[in-house]
C-alpha cells in the first residue's frame, strides 16, 4: 500500500497531505515569531527609553529590502502560476528570479550587519540591538532555508516535472507558501524594528 493523498486530494478534507503539513508547520512558525514579538513588547514597554528604529538603523536599506522581498513573493507566485499553465520555461525564469531576489536581500542584510558590527553595535550593545539581531537573524535563516528549497526545485528537483507534473506543481506551491510567510514576517518586522 502506498501512502495515499500525496498528490490527489482527499474527498472529505479537500486537501493533500503536503498542503496540510506546510500549513501546520507555518502555524508553529507563527508561534515562534509570536514569542519573539511578545518579548519585544514586554522588554520595550518595560524600558525607560527606547530608540526610534530609524535613528539607529538605516530605514532606506530596509525599505529597499522590503520591496525586494515583496517582489520575490510575486515572482514566486508567478512561478507557480506558470506551472499551472504548463509553461515550464517561464517557471524556470520566475523561480530563478525568486532565488536571486532572496540573494539580493541577503546581500543587503550583510552590508547592514557589517555596518553595525563595525560601529561596535553588537547584540550586547543594548536590548534594541539584541532583539534586532535575534529577530532579523532568525528571519534571515528562514530566507536562506527558503532559497535552498527553491533552488532545489529550480535545479535537480525539477526532474519531477517530467514524471509527475501535478505533484511537482504542488510542491512548488507549498514551498511558495513558506516563502510568502517569510515575506509576511518581514512585513511586520520592517515597521516594528526600523520605523517605530
Amino acid at each position: 500500500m502506498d501512502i495515499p493523498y500525496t498528490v490527489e486530494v482527499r474527498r472529505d478534507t479537500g486537501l493533500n497531505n503536503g498542503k496540510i503539513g506546510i500549513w501546520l508547520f507555518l502555524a508553529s512558525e507563527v508561534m515562534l515569531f509570536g514569542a519573539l514579538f511578545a518579548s519585544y513588547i514586554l522588554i520595550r514597554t518595560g524600558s525607560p527609553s527606547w530608540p526610534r528604529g530609524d535613528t539607529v538603523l538605516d530605514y532606506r536599506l530596509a525599505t529597499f529590502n522590503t520591496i525586494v522581498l515583496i517582489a520575490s513573493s510575486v515572482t514566486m507566485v508567478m512561478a507557480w502560476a506558470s506551472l499551472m499553465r504548463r509553461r515550464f520555461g517561464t517557471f524556470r525564469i520566475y523561480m530563478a528570479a525568486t532565488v536571486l531576489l532572496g540573494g539580493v536581500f541577503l546581500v543587503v542584510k550583510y552590508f547592514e550587519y557589517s555596518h553595525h558590527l563595525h560601529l561596535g553595535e553588537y547584540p550586547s550593545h543594548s536590548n534594541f540591538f539584541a532583539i534586532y539581531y535575534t529577530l532579523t537573524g532568525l528571519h534571515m535563516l528562514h530566507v536562506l532555508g527558503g532559497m535552498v528549497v527553491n533552488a532545489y526545485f529550480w535545479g535537480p528537483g525539477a526532474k519531477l516535472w517530467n514524471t509527475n507534473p501535478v505533484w511537482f506543481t504542488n510542491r512548488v506551491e507549498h514551498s511558495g507558501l513558506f516563502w510568502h510567510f517569510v515575506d509576511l514576517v518581514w512585513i511586520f518586522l520592517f515597521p516594528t524594528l526600523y520605523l517605530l
Partner: protein
Amino acid sequence: MSDHLATTDHDDHAGHDPADIDRHVRVYIMVFVALMVLTVITVAVSRLHLSVPAAVSVALLVATVKGGLVACYFMHLISEKKLILAVLALTAAFFVVLLALPSLTHSNGFWIPQAEPAHSDDAHK
C-alpha cells in the same frame, strides 16, 4: 484544456482553467502594486514623526493590511479549505494569548512599579 494542470478532485481554486489562471495573474499584479504603495505609505508616515501611539497604530494597521493581502492572495487563503482556516484561527487565538497575557500579567504585578535598580541608578551605560 489539456495544456493546463487540473488536479484531480480539485474543486477549490475554482478549477484553474486558463482564463482563471490569467485572472489570478492579474490579481497578483494588482496586489503587488498595492503592496508597493502601502510600503511607501508606511515609510512616508514614519517621516512625519507622529506621536508614538499614533505611529504604532498606523504602522501596525498598514502592516496588517499588507500581511492580509499576502496571506489572502499569494497564499490563497481567501479560497482555502475550512480545515486550514480553522487551524489558523486556533493559532491566531493562541498567538494573541501569547502576546497579551505576559504583558497583562506584568502590568498587574503588585511590585513597586518603577523599581529602582537594586543598587545604583546607572551602573551601566
